[in-house]
């Protein structure tokens, strides 16, 4: 019964991943048809490459900014939309919309919002900031877009988590005199931690792989590119623009390793904060 899915996973996910690891030890010529074993040469080059370390820092900074912001805002909106307010389903749809918006179309709109001369953001803030081509701001612009796109889906997950919290708990707490923020702090939050744990794992993995917003919004001739270039963007550049699949493979293999470590660490840490009843 699971054979079709399993075969699909093996062929389209597992095999490319394994092949990527293999590619990292090769030097390929002729569009990958002639391969030569070079051992760790690609990794030696990588570790000596200042740009790689910068890209790694960029990626980690993005994760550090994006993940907590998304979790906090998604939780906030989920709690708000879990309350009995007028037009609740309308709000839910509105917050979920970014999820079903075509990334490329949304990026075009964001480029207009961020534009320095006539951009919406600058005219609202009364500033004249080059959001996407000033290296001091480009990362925040990307985080903004990332959070905007991620809130909808994560809000939905957290909403589901909220609705699985038994009502009587709140009623009991109310009898004991708990109100508002205290109910949230001592009932909602602890019982939501399994959901938050899951969302944070998925968000971290997703955030380390940031690529499309850099590609679509920043672009390759942007002076701010070095300040936001992620590992996956560097992978794309090396593999598909510079025709160096091996160096590209080395980059994503390091990323794979980082993700394994990050996820492992999160699983270890869950004992400290996740409440399973």
């Amino acid at each position: 019964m699971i054979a079709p899915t399993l075969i699909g996973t093996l062929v389209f996910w597992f095999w490319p991943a394994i092949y990527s690891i293999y590619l990292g030890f090769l030097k390929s010529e002729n569009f990958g048809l002639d391969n030569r074993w070079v051992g760790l040469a690609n990794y030696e080059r990588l570790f000596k490459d200042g740009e790689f370390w910068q890209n790694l820092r960029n990626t980690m900074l993005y994760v550090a900014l994006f993940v907590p912001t998304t979790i906090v805002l998604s939780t906030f909106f989920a709690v708000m939309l879990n309350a009995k307010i007028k037009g609740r389903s309308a709000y839910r749809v509105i917050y979920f919309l970014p999820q079903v918006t075509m990334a490329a179309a949304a990026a075009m709109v964001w480029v207009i919002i961020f534009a320095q001369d006539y951009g919406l953001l600058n005219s609202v803030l009364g500033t004249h900031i080059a959001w996407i081509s000033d290296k001091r701001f480009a990362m925040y612009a990307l985080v903004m877009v990332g959070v905007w796109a991620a809130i909808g889906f994560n809000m939905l997950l957290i909403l589901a988590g909220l609705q699985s919290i038994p009502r009587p708990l709140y009623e009991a707490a109310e009898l004991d005199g708990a109100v508002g923020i205290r109910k949230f702090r001592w009932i909602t939050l602890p019982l939501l931690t399994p959901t938050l744990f899951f969302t944070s794992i998925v968000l971290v993995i997703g955030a380390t792989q940031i690529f499309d917003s850099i590609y679509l919004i920043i672009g390759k001739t942007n002076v701010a590119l070095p300040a936001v270039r992620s590992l996956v963007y560097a992978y794309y550049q090396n593999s598909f623009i510079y025709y160096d699949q091996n160096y590209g493979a080395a980059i994503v293999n390091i990323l794979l390793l980082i993700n394994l470590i990050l996820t492992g660490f999160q699983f270890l840490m869950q004992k400290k904060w996740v409440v399973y009843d």
Partner: protein
Amino acid sequence: MNVRKKSTAVTAAGVLLVASLALAACGGNSNNGGNAAGSASAGGASSPAASKPAGGDPKKNVTISYTIWDKNQQPAMEAIAKAFTDQNPNIKVKIDVIPWGDYWTKMSAAAPSGTLPDVFWMHGGQFIKYATGKFIEPITDKVTAGEIDLGNYASNLGSIYTLDGENYGIPKDFDTIGLAYNKELFDTAGVPYPDDTWDYAKLAEVAKQLSQPDKGIYGFGAKLDTQAGYWNDILANGGHILNDDMTKSGYDEPATIEALKARYQLIVDKASPTHQQMTDTDAVEMFKSGKLAMIFDGSWDNGNLASSDIIKGKYDWAPLPKGKVMRGNIINGLGNVMSSKGKHKEESWQFLKFLGSKEAAEITAQMGAAIPAFTGTQDAWVKSQPDLNLQVFIDQAADAVPYPSGSKSYPVWFAKEAEIMSQAWGGAISVEEGAKKVAEMMNQAIADAK
């Protein structure tokens, strides 16, 4: 029930909103699609109705694919394909456009998997990779057999797509660079139009004169660009992109750096929009919307400029300005090639041969798509838009320098060049530093490719 109904309505509204966003994003393309269809049929009608072979045709019906990167040339390519199908009713040609930015990425994925289009456009810079790997079909025996004469093409273009004595491609067109100017902006300021007496100092002077940064109008688009940009400045100033035997970068030569600095100075002097402004809105688009008085652009792009309602009839072409040493200009020739792994190689060859014919060249010329390579058909291109001085592109071809491709390292250094130079153009590093970095990177790429 009521609640559910309401949420369905809201969802529907959401879907509509998203759909309209998506439609808005596609708006630009669908316009062009409409144009393409219209002009294609017009072109087909103007070409002589070919005699269809009478009676039952024993040949089987096949469809071959033809992939190009310039959507402005799509109508002409459709017209050529139609003329071909009229003569060979069993062969249909399906034309796909992959924009330049993705073209070689897709081709490099298609090549090793044997899924290259049957026939496709080739660029001199990419040719060697595809020929050494035998991904494209050699046509040497067809040339030897006299099926096609590579001597039919202007400016020795027939030799571009040759490697180790084998021929692989048939010249399609050639292109040079011109100075496009907005007549209206010159008239308003009472400045005479650019002509062949201009040098770079004059260009800079007039660019400053015409700039009104507070109104968003600039004299010149000093864009970060190679072929239609500073490569011409470099040559005019006596610098080099590569040395003559293509073993060393010329970016660190003083004359090269001087030319690059002069172009960058126009941004500093506010005679040109900043790099960041030109990243937000492409310089050519600014010219098309009447915000730039002058810009360098390629002959291939005339169709694109002419498609703008804002500057239609208000712009014209002049030769590039003279530099210290010469009038710099880059000439490049595109070719048509066919896949060596195609399923219908015989039919593809027939089409490839037709693409290299005088008839195809005439369609290309009449529709103003590009300067055809076939000797003697260029005039038709010049006359395709009689109100424009397209002759400047033909005249400049004589002294132009070939595009510096034709080496295995080209695709690597060319891609990295733009990235490094964008740091200089954006002001993160000095132009001199950028040029020296490019030279270092190019020399490394040349060494790696050996």
